[in-house]
């Protein structure tokens, strides 16, 4: 799985951080999403899928299984 984030579309909601804290963080200056890991371990895939599904900015794109 490859994870892509669009910082311009991010609303800084923090939903992704709550879903998958090992994959997403928020920038200290403005709370905008920062990707910690663009190729997360399969055990995190469910959480990353949840993050992409609930992201209010539709800022998370997943490629591959």
């Amino acid at each position: 799985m490859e994870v892509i984030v669009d910082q311009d579309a991010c609303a800084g909601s923090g939903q992704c951080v709550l879903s998958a804290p090992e994959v997403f963080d928020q920038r200290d200056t403005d709370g905008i999403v920062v990707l910690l890991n663009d190729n997360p371990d399969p055990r995190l895939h469910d959480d990353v899928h949840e993050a992409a599904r609930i992201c209010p900015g539709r800022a998370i794109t997943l490629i591959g299984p």
Partner: protein
Amino acid sequence: MTDASSETPMFPIARAAGCPFDPPPELSRNREQAPVSRVRLWDGSTAWMVTRYADVRALLADPRVSVDVAQPGFPHTNAVSKARDTQMKTLMQMDAPEHITNRRRLTAEFMVKRVEALRPTIQQIVDDLIDDLLAGPNPVDLVEAFALPVPSMVICELLGVPYTDRAYFQRVAGELLMDQGDPAKAMAASEELHVYLENLVEERNAEPGDNVFSRLAVEQYRTGAMTRREIATLGQLLLVAGHDTTANTIALGTALLLAHPEQLAAIRDSGDPALVARAVEELLRYLTVTHTESRRVAREDLVVGGQLIRQGEGIIAVKSTANRDPAAFSDPDTLDIHRGARHHVAFGYGAHQCLGQPLARVELQVVFDTLFRRIPTLAPAVPLEELTFKPNAVFYGVRDLPVTW
């Protein structure tokens, strides 16, 4: 085009007697039979009402949809909100790109790690209030003694409002949100609050501390990026958006759990933060206290759920029915604190999704984790059928919640 025929139902619609925790049955019927349909509003205008989960999300994330309250077709909630929102523009009334600039001045304040760092302070506030409650009269009204002071003390802490001004702050907040209030009175309360908050900007600028107003004073006011007045308006927004929403969720959520004692016991006895967090999401979903819903206006023609909506027409995204949509939640009318409900739209969706949601979550998690653990025998002091609710308030809730232990 905007033919307000007498057949067009009024919005809002009353809830069913005896079902204070459920959305009006007519609205749920609409979701199944006419998911995008016209409604008539308080001022005689009409708007589109969108009731399905998928349509609500699509709409609230659509850049062709606007929060511009100056548009003649914008579906205002009542005369008070119309006066306030058109005279006092906040980031809630801004579209991109202006919205992004203004929202991003505050996103760091509410980001997950910043709010997590506040958890011990929030725990202390909740513990102190419960100490006072246990030392006071029994029975007591949980709304006054607990549900209102928790968010009010948290917001004062966050903004940097001195402890001694709390009572004043709470009173003005109440006047701003009067049920069927008179716009002139609400605007006078708002003006009074602005004077107070502008002074607070000067005070925090002279003597900065570790809080939002100090940072806004130093980073925005001192540098000329924002005026004192603009910061005061932002402070008022945070107060209005963060106070009654949270207070009503606390009181109504407690009433709902008292009506489901086995689920209350599961929260009380679990000691598992993950379960408490799941329970909070379920309460947010089930109750959706922002029952005046999310109001928008079409900036261009667009199709929602198969229905053409014309440029300039008003739209109401009904989160209460979206959160009970069987397409998104199995057995949606059953309260189940164990379900994973975090995809609910109780905080809205899209660019305007609640800015304070990480804070609201931590407040509610601390409250529901602590209240039943500290007061394990908490019980209603009147039969639950006798509780009265707030059908006409901006945020839905229970009027009083007499409890005993």
